[in-house]
């Protein structure tokens, strides 16, 4: 081995830097090859007219203009995606309720905690199939229960009906992610020092005030972490929607992500899909940054004195 004496290699700091780079390199390479490079290429592609086997042609903003002016499905998908996002506060509120229950002295809290969380590690495909069965018009357990209890007389086609389809898909998505929200919120709850509640109790704050003046502000970073996860999920729930409805009926459950998929791989409009992807990505960045800002820039952090 030859080692240059003196020079760059001589200082300890530089040697450490070289070592750090060595350790980081594999993941940086992967990150570059599979994230940055496609993203960059995707942005370029969105300004081009291109289909496989044909040379690319620069067309400026034409893809975006088409999206804006002619693509009704884009607007439907955007609206549905935003509804998806808007549903997550409700899911987070429900998860907070469960977390509070599980965090109390409830008997068997550990069991409930596990049960609630169990849905999260399931594959979205499996969740989609389970819920498709449950929503089924003829054999589904939900329709069975509704009719058995006399709430309805005719079966509801949850995934076939234009009005029911989106809420039904959202419900399945919420069911899956609520366990994750709950674990995050539970961790947040458990990191609140109990003597804050004791101090507040002695100070005379009633239960409501203890919740809104201690629990909620102390949970703020956890709540916003859930919100960010909710936003990410709404953009990424491809597999669930694909399995349950494939965007249908009509485009009632079309999300940006399914629209992108169909544009690219069904209609082979890769250039147009690239433009859609850029829009979705931009939206995602804006929303998550906004959420992080709203949380005071410390999403997921634990506030202590």
């Amino acid at each position, binding site marked *: 081995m030859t080692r240059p004496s003196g020079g760059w290699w001589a200082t300890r700091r530089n040697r450490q830097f070289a070592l750090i780079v060595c350790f980081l390199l594999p993941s940086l390479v992967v990150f570059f090859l599979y994230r940055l490079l496609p993203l960059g290429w995707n942005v370029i592609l969105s300004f081009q007219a291109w289909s496989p086997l044909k040379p690319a042609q620069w067309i400026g903003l034409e893809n975006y203009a088409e999206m804006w002016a002619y693509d009704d499905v884009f607007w439907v998908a955007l609206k549905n995606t935003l509804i998806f996002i808007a549903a997550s506060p409700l899911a987070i509120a429900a998860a907070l309720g469960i977390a509070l229950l599980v965090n109390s002295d409830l008997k068997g809290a550990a069991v409930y905690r596990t049960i609630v969380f169990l849905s999260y590690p399931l594959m979205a495909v499996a969740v989609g199939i389970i819920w498709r069965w449950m929503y089924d018009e003829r054999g589904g357990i939900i329709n069975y229960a509704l009719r058995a209890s006399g709430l309805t007389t005719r079966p509801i086609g949850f995934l076939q009906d234009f009005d029911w389809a989106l809420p039904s898909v959202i419900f399945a998505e919420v069911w899956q992610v609520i366990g994750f929200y709950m674990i995050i919120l539970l961790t947040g709850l458990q990191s609140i020092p109990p003597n804050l509640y*004791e101090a507040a109790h*002695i*100070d005379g704050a009633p239960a409501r*005030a203890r919740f809104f003046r201690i629990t909620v502000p*102390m949970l703020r970073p956890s709540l916003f972490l859930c919100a960010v996860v909710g936003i990410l999920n709404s953009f990424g729930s491809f597999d669930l929607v694909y399995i349950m409805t494939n965007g249908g009926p009509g485009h009632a459950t079309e999300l940006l992500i399914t629209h992108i998929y169909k544009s690219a791989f069904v209609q082979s409009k890769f250039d147009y899909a690239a433009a859609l992807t850029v829009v979705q990505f931009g939206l995602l960045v804006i929303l998550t940054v906004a959420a992080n800002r709203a949380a005071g820039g410390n999403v997921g952090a634990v506030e202590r*004195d």
Partner: protein
Amino acid sequence: MATVSLRSVRKSYDAQEVVHGVDLEVADQEFVVLVGPSGCGKSTLLRMIAGLEDISGGEIAIGDRVVNEIDPKDRDVAMVFQDYALYPHLTVFQNIAFSLQYRGVGKADIARRVAQAAAILDIESLLDRKPRQLSGGQRQRVAMGRAIVREPKVFLFDEPLSNLDAKLRVQMRTEIKKLRERVRTTAIYVTHDQVEAMTLADRIVLMHNGRVEQIGTPEDVYDEPATLFVAGFVGASAMNLVAGRVENGAQGCAVILGNGARLALPASRFEAHADMPVTVGLRPEHLHWSHYGTPSLQGTARVVEPLGSDTLVVFDLAGCELQARLPPRLVRRAGDPVSVAIAPEAIHLFDPATGHRL
């Protein structure tokens, strides 16, 4: 302003009893310190007074009112926690004002009272800060401010100084004493530090294993420790406790240590205990250097620890190992002769079987 009465108060966690019947009367405006080793039940007792723990047996009264079943917020007590329990997301002002908001105090009144408390504690410049922007000592003051702004009937302190470094602790101890002159409210203060207890208390309650060992003024517990435990616990340097035997002979009453060292006892007090084996308690600061001529005990130094103002000498006396706090430079190194004497009144005798003072 109120008295606090504890009448055979007990506490059990499941089947385990941790406080075994404590009786205590705290007078109006009195500052009582609960002191004892870790795990003796001081915090548990304090938390029962605050209402944070159920009372398993007995009765607690604040003023004339039995509070066993009364909610903490209606007991009119304020508590300072060991880790301060400041609300991290609220400013100092909001922290101090917190309790007033739930007691129907008007906005202007709140501002005035917070300002007043802040002035007393010298934290006026910190009112807009969040707790995490404060030093340990400043947080401590805010915690105090939160308590005094309420003007409660009783202050409860649970080791409020134990998270501070040694120097700041001494400083805050003095501050609490000063504060006490301005705000004369009944207070119960928990600590495991006997120096804190001695310096702050009107009366000390010594606890051990969930029982009260002794209640008395700092002088009482120092001069006349009721039990071996108290004798060992109170005092800047631990009391020497060695086995001995009472002898009532021609030369009067005396106690014999080890293989023959003889300490004269006050006349007549211990005659009834003649020939009884006893535990002898001698405070290191009461063993004084004896000059030529006075009757003295001769020993040999084993360890010499100069402290500047005085010197701690561990020495061997008739086969017993004793510690003495002597003036500096009299004993210089191990092996030097040690010659000490002790006043008969300063000798404590305990029954080794029961641990009680004779």
